[in-house]
């Protein structure tokens, strides 16, 4: 149980707007895990089953709150705004080891970018790029097609990349 406490709490922090919502998500998810554990079918991975429950709790919590309705991100929303002026040389931040760049401020920037994504895009990018699920697993957890996961992931990633570009443009040179 302890392993899933950590995982679900951090998943909650990534998906929810604040820590209280993340805690509510964990508690509600565990209530459902305990309730439905006797019916768990061994043929599906336990981790995937747990996240399916967490996502379903998350969707129910969203319906209860005052979240805006789901918005789609169009291709135009994520196309680089400055494509004509895009550099032809790799910026310094892209040359550094990722772990060297990460600090609390950058973590907060990523969190802020994820928070402004429409909910399904947020879930897709968190499951794929932060929780290490495959495209197939993410599609199963969210009950959407793999093609849908790929489109949303692509757009969410570019959205986050734009936010990071902005951060590094204004932040001190990482070198």
């Amino acid at each position: 149980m302890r392993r899933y406490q950590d995982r679900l709490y951090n998943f909650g922090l990534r998906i929810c707007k604040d820590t209280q919502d993340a805690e509510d998500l964990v508690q509600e998810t565990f209530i459902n895990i305990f309730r439905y554990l006797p019916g768990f079918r061994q043929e599906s991975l336990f981790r995937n089953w747990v996240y399916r429950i967490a996502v379903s709790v998350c969707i129910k919590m969203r319906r209860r709150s005052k979240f805006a309705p789901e918005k789609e991100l169009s291709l135009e929303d994520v196309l680089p705004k400055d494509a004509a002026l895009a550099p032809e040389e790799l910026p310094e931040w892209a040359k550094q080891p990722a772990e060297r760049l990460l600090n609390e401020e950058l973590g907060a920037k990523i969190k802020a970018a994820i928070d402004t994504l429409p909910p399904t895009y947020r879930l897709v990018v968190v499951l794929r790029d932060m929780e290490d699920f495959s495209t197939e697993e993410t599609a199963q957890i969210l009950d959407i097609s793999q093609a849908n996961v790929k489109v949303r992931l692509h757009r969410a990633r570019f959205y986050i990349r734009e936010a990071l570009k902005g951060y590094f443009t204004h932040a001190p040179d990482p070198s």
Partner: protein
Amino acid sequence: MPQTPPEIPSHCLALFDRFSAYVDGELQGEERRALEEHLQHCPKCRVCLATLTQSIRICNQVGSRPVPQSLSLKLENLAKSFQVTET
């Protein structure tokens, strides 16, 4: 609704949607070959792809926070109430 920036060359735009699948190793055959050939000749797309890859790596490396003790206690009590044995 923002308009597609006219400055993006159409051949770059046509391949833009495949970058993410390429990073994930999900692009195969002719699609993969066409993208790699384009990348050889287009420095802007190379930078775009490299910064996307780096952005994904950074997201991958974001650390986790410990569960607050108060929440951990609540979950233990919850498990007891459902008579779940701690493993």
